[in-house]
């Protein structure tokens, strides 16, 4: 393999330390350092701190015809940034490269001065002694007063990391080209204006001279010209020539070859776009010459001046500033673009690179991104997706055609009927969008306003449903043993539930009454295993008090539909078990029953039942509500908490937007992440925290830091953090109860990093609620911050919470208790180890993110592993399929105990998301897990 035999291996370490001494040693300047990264205190971060400037900045320099190279301005315009770095010297260095050898003046064979539209040059160079490296973008601007009409400028991005500049060369080049185009467009406009003024001056001068000549002619009757007259005539000729020259220049500047920009340089188009975005009235980038001319000629009235015959070009004249050269608006636009660049490339290269790789990889994962990825990024992608035509299946998502091919035998499946693999009752709350048109509108307008509006509607409609007269009562007990025969009505709707599910639900009791449906509950057979009731923290757990016959703990629904029929529908959706369905495989079609427009049915029902005042309709995101609510709740919509009334975008997208939420009590803890590490702040900010090109990047980063830090505190302080996180990951709503709003909000924000999203808009997190909870809250929110109010008037809040306590996990911050199901998996301990040595919130956030990505990968595999969800042969029962699934989860994915439920829950969300036509537009079904809860105390 190697071209020489093995030779002696190294023996003594000491030998490496010494160089040969018996002969003339190699001068160090000709050698290479032995430890490029580890000598003399060098480390991977040290290079960045050696520079004289504190962080990367942008420098604009000019090669002035009067004083030579000079720095004009820096971005950011803060002397602290460039510190003691010699801007004059560096300007001299970067401006000494002249590759824009454009010929301006009278070229051979041309009668008039010719403008040469020079393309920008880009140079990367550096000063290794100063530790400063720069991307330099050279450009030339036109100035009628300047020598040769040109003023050379350059914009330089200066960094201590040369590697960064080369790695980001194309991005830097593209961004600086935009800035340059902006400057040059403004400059052309200003230059044309200048020429027009000059032409007017010249025209006026010509008229004056002409008049004077005529007067002189008339005055002179001697028949020959006086020297004065000749001088005037020469002057006039000179002005005439100048007029022609300037007219030619104006023509040249107006005929700027836009196609050159459009054809080859994408950035020009982008620059145009940027300008448009800024709402500038000017359309100078328009390639249409006539429009262009119009812009150039559209100027305020100008009073021409007389031009003296001998205009002197002296060095004492004042050169135009960059702002004057480029038109104020364009100059401001350029500065904004440069600030954007400075912000975009700020920070350590490793973060920049990783964020670029992240974005590229996330683009390939539209299917799973919605679960845990950042709100902003997901929305970005959605917007991106909307802008384009539907992607090819192979690129965007697994092709449905191929998936259908997998359906052999063909399976009918209902989205609304997913049987949770965690033993639970699923109550589908119809929320599909009403019509395609509406979908389109909503999808194309992903603004926070609309989003908020949608959710407000949703909330309002859900509240509105309280007026319905009927109720559905779901009563549950794990200890019920009686088995009732299925009602005939169950056959009316074909909602799939596997035979296995029926078997496991054998211990259930249901009664259907005229006014209510009572579902007495389903207890998973395994849930009855006594071992399950053993506390994993014996000293800290108290078993939940009651199970059987706990009618107080039951959930009472009020439905606006005809009780019987709707009851049938609900019952059917819960219990019906057609043998031909495969409820757990996403690879299938939606059940036709779902496609039947519900409003028709509802209309019928309402016609038949005079009691129902509001006919139930298929739930629409915007204007329809789920007409079901607790009978015990107030009939009129209860006054909700003030904070929950208006859903700010921050509320909706905590992953990104919470950062700047106005929290009434700001604890110092919020900042502990940044203050705990003061010593490192002194180093250059080139290697500061990752930055994002997104405008909200900074607030996102801050939010991540805080959320991570608070989550870290939580897992260190609360020994029962694992079951709490398990609740969130498995879709069981966690209510954080406390008196202090700030503390509750802080914890909710922290825990929100573990909450999977339903869709791509916002996390189902409600940071603060002060009024009693509704059943719909459990459908909408998976993490709720609830106010504990001591006044007797607010006793309803706690009472309602107590009622649902069986179906939710409750974290009582005041009493430091947690009531939730037991968790014995291995996934959460890896995610939230209280012994972790991770020091900073942002690091912990990154750790959680990577672990959740790993989890998503498992979920994806489980969901799309087609052979898992289909019978291997015709005779294979659903039970066998299910057991195969469980064994796959355990053996192939290495999941233990409750971890299985987490993956199964996330897989359900994934299936829903995948099968929805417009993903993320509806909430999943309401579901309750009938599993025993335990009380954990510190």
């Amino acid at each position, binding site marked *: 393999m190697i*071209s020489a035999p093995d030779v002696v291996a190294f023996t003594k370490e000491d030998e490496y330390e010494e160089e040969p001494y018996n002969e003339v040693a190699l001068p160090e300047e000709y050698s290479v350092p032995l430890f490029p990264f580890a000598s003399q205190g060098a480390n991977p971060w040290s290079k960045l701190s050696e520079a004289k400037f504190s962080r990367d900045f942008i420098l604009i320099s000019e090669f002035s015809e009067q004083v030579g190279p000079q720095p004009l301005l820096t971005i950011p315009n803060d002397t602290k940034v460039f510190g003691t770095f010699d801007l004059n010297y560096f300007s001299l260095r970067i401006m000494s490269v002249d590759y824009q050898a454009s010929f301006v003046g009278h070229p051979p064979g041309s009668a008039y001065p010719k403008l040469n539209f020079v393309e920008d040059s880009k140079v990367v160079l550096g000063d290794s002694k100063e530790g400063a490296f720069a991307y330099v973008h050279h450009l030339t601007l036109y100035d009628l007063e300047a020598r040769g009409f040109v003023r050379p400028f350059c914009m330089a991005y200066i960094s201590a990391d040369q590697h960064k500049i080369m790695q980001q060369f194309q991005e830097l080049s593209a961004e600086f080209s935009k800035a340059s185009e902006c400057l040059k467009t403004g400059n052309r406009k200003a230059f044309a204006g200048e020429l027009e003024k000059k032409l007017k001056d010249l025209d006026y001068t010509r008229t004056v001279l002409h008049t004077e000549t005529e007067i002189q002619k008339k005055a002179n009757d001697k028949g020959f010209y006086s020297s004065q007259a000749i001088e005037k005539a020469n002057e006039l000729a000179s002005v005439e020539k100048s007029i022609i020259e300037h007219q030619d220049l104006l023509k040249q500047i107006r005929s700027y070859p836009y196609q050159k920009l459009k054809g080859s340089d994408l950035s020009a188009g982008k620059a145009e776009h940027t300008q448009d975005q800024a709402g500038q009235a000017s359309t100078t980038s328009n390639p249409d010459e006539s429009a262009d001319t119009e812009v150039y000629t559209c100027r305020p009235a100008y009073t021409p001046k007389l031009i003296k015959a001998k205009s002197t070009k002296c060095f004492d004249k004042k050169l135009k500033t960059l702002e004057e050269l480029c038109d104020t608006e364009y100059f401001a636009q350029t500065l904004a673009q440069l600030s954007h660049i400075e912000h975009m490339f700020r920070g350590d290269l490793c973060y920049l690179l990783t964020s670029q790789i992240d974005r590229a990889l996330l683009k390939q994962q539209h299917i799973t991104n919605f679960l845990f990825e950042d709100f902003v990024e997901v929305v970005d992608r959605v917007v991106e997706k909307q802008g384009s035509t539907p992607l090819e299946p192979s690129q965007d998502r697994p092709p449905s055609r191929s998936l259908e091919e997998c359906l052999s035998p063909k399976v009918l499946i209902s989205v609304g009927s997913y049987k949770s693999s965690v033993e639970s009752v699923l109550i589908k709350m119809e929320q599909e969008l009403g019509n395609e048109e509406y979908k389109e509108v909503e999808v194309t307008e992903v603004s926070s306003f609309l989003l908020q509006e949608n959710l407000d509607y949703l909330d309002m409609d859900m509240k509105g449903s309280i007026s319905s007269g009927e109720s559905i009562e779901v009563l549950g007990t794990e200890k019920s043993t009686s088995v009732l025969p299925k009602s005939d009505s169950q056959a009316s709707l074909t909602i799939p539930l596997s035979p296995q599910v029926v078997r496991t639900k054998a211990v259930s009791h249901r009664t259907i009454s005229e006014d209510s449906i009572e579902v007495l509950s389903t207890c998973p057979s395994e849930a009855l295993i006594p071992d399950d009731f053993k506390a994993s923290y014996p000293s800290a757990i108290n078993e939940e008090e009651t199970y059987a016959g706990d009618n107080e703990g039951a959930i009472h629904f009020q439905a606006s539909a005809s009780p019987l029929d709707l009851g049938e529908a609900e019952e059917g959706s819960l219990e019906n078990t057609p043998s031909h369905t495969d409820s757990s495989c996403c690879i299938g079609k939606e059940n036709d029953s779902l496609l039947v427009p519900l409003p028709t049915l509802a209309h019928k029902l309402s016609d038949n039942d005079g009691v129902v005042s509001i006919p139930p309709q298929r739930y629409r995101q915007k204007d329809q509500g789920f007409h079901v609510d607790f009978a015990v709740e107030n009939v009129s919509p209860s006054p909700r908490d003030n904070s929950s009334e208006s859903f700010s975008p921050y509320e909706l997208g905590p992953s990104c937007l919470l950062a700047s939420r106005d929290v009434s009590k700001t604890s110092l803890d919020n900042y502990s992440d940044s203050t705990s590490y003061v010593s490192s702040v002194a180093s250059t900010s080139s290697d500061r925290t990752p930055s994002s090109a997104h405008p909200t990047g900074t607030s996102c980063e801050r939010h991540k830091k805080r959320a991570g830090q608070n989550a870290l505190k939580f897992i260190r302080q609360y020994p029962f953090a694992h079951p709490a996180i398990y609740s969130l990951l498995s879709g069981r709503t966690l209510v954080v109860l406390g008196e202090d709003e700030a503390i509750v909000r802080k914890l909710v924000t922290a825990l929100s990093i573990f909450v999977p999203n339903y869709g791509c808009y916002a996390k189902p997190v409600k940071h603060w609620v002060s009024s009693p909870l509704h059943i719909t809250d459990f459908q909408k929110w998976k993490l709720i911050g609830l106010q504990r109010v001591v006044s007797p008037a607010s006793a309803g809040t706690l009472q309602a919470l107590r009622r649902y306590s069986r179906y939710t996990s409750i974290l009582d911050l005041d009493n430091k208790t947690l009531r939730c199901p037991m968790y014995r998996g291995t996934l959460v301990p890896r995610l939230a180890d209280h012994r972790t040595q991770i020091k900073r919130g942002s690091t912990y956030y990154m750790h959680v993110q990577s672990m959740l990505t790993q989890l998503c990968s498992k979920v994806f595999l489980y969901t799309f592993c087609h052979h898992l969800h289909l019978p291997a042969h015709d005779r294979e029962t659903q039970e066998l399929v299910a057991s195969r699934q469980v064994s796959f989860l355990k053996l192939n994915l290495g999941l233990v105990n409750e971890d299985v439920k987490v993956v199964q829950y996330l897989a359900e969300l994934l299936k829903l998301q995948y099968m929805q036509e417009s993903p993320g537009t509806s909430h999943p079904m309401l579901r309750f897990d009938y599993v025993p809860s335990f009380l954990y105390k510190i």
Partner: protein
Amino acid sequence: MSTLCPPPSPAVAKTEIVLSGESPLLAATFAYWDNILGPRVRHIWAPKTEQVLLSDGEITFLANHTLNGEILRNAESGAIDVKFFVLSEKGVIIVSLIFDGNWNGDRSTYGLSIILPQTELSFYLPLHRVCVDRLTHIIRKGRIWMHKERQENVQKIVLEGTERMEDQGQSIIPMLTGEVIPVMELLSSMKSHSVSEEIDIADTVLNDDDIGDSCHEGFLLNAISSHLQTCGCSVVVGSSAEKVNKIVRTLCLFLTPAERKCSRLCETESSFKYESGLFVQGLLKDSTGSFVLPFRQVMYAPYPTTHIDVDVNTVKQMPPCHEHIYNQRRYMRSELTAFWRATSEEDMAQDTIIYTDESFTPDLNIFQDVLHRDTLVKAFLDQVFHLKPGLSLRSTFLAQFLLILHRKALTLIKYIEDDTQKGKKPFKSLRNLKIDLDLTAEGDLNIIMALAEKIKPGLHSFIFGRPFYTSVQERDVLMTF
């Protein structure tokens, strides 16, 4: 390209190089700063082509300008600085390596440059580091040679009393030619055989119905695992070009698009030479069934390499980054020292393995078995074949896997950054890191560390520091006490 260029200097010598394939390189130049005349071009290398894209005058004009502003040069002793120009007006990109040296008795500034058309910018950028590293090293040697020759000439002048100053320094040109031609050949081969940015998973082993259809399960696991542990740097050798290329493409799936563009497939008929600095390269064995890797060049690669033989299904890997860098630097220093001491041109021939030095004997047995097993790649391979091939499911799953690796790598960097206050304090808690970041399997840690090394160079050396021959595992054991 502009025609408004001054005529070339009559003194410029030119070497025309015959290349078998298309050359993206327009020319290479060697220029220097003359204290009287300013920047001057000494030598031009250009591929021999029928169509002249850039005249000698234009090349000279451009090369002269690479030294523009270098009168202000403010560099550290021995520094070789890189300048990079994209000149839209001329339609070219230029990469210049600027250095100081002694020639003709004067200390002066020199520039070795390569010129490419601007249309090749995206082709060139991923190869920038390879080209710069290789030219930098030849400059290091050339500088020594210039220095030595001057001394020798001065002695001869004194002895013989003849004026031979004109010839001085000429021999640096053949030395530079010795590296400029391979760089041209490398770029030419990359033009025709580089791996594309987007790889169709159908052309890889990951499209098989089941693991082991194309190659043995254990072999695939070892290959991918070791490939990731050596920073995505691998050499795939074999007798069948098809088989080799399939593995090359498979390994490239685990690289970024830019890294893929810095990887090369093997030729179907004859084999390319090994090129130092590429990420993955396929090489065809000769008729005797062997492929000889040049030791020196393997050592000079920026990252350790995995050697994969698809004929016999063997996977061998070089030591981790910190050891590799240390070995590399030792070898470089030895080579330069040997060069410094050499008394004849024969002694200075390239690719001579330096193993006669009293103090330094390179270990030629640099490839070892893959010792550290990982769980990340194993789990991935165990799982990916459960997904139906032919759809985009496996691509999505692969993207998820890569995302996990990248996120873990960034978390690891951040963890170390926090723990050491950005390098101000030594890192002492490797064991904690492994537990906290769920990297307890040695192979997992190696993979994530290798990925982290690419985005944060020097991380290995910083963490493991001295002694450089302590493996990650040993170091970890030591740290636990």
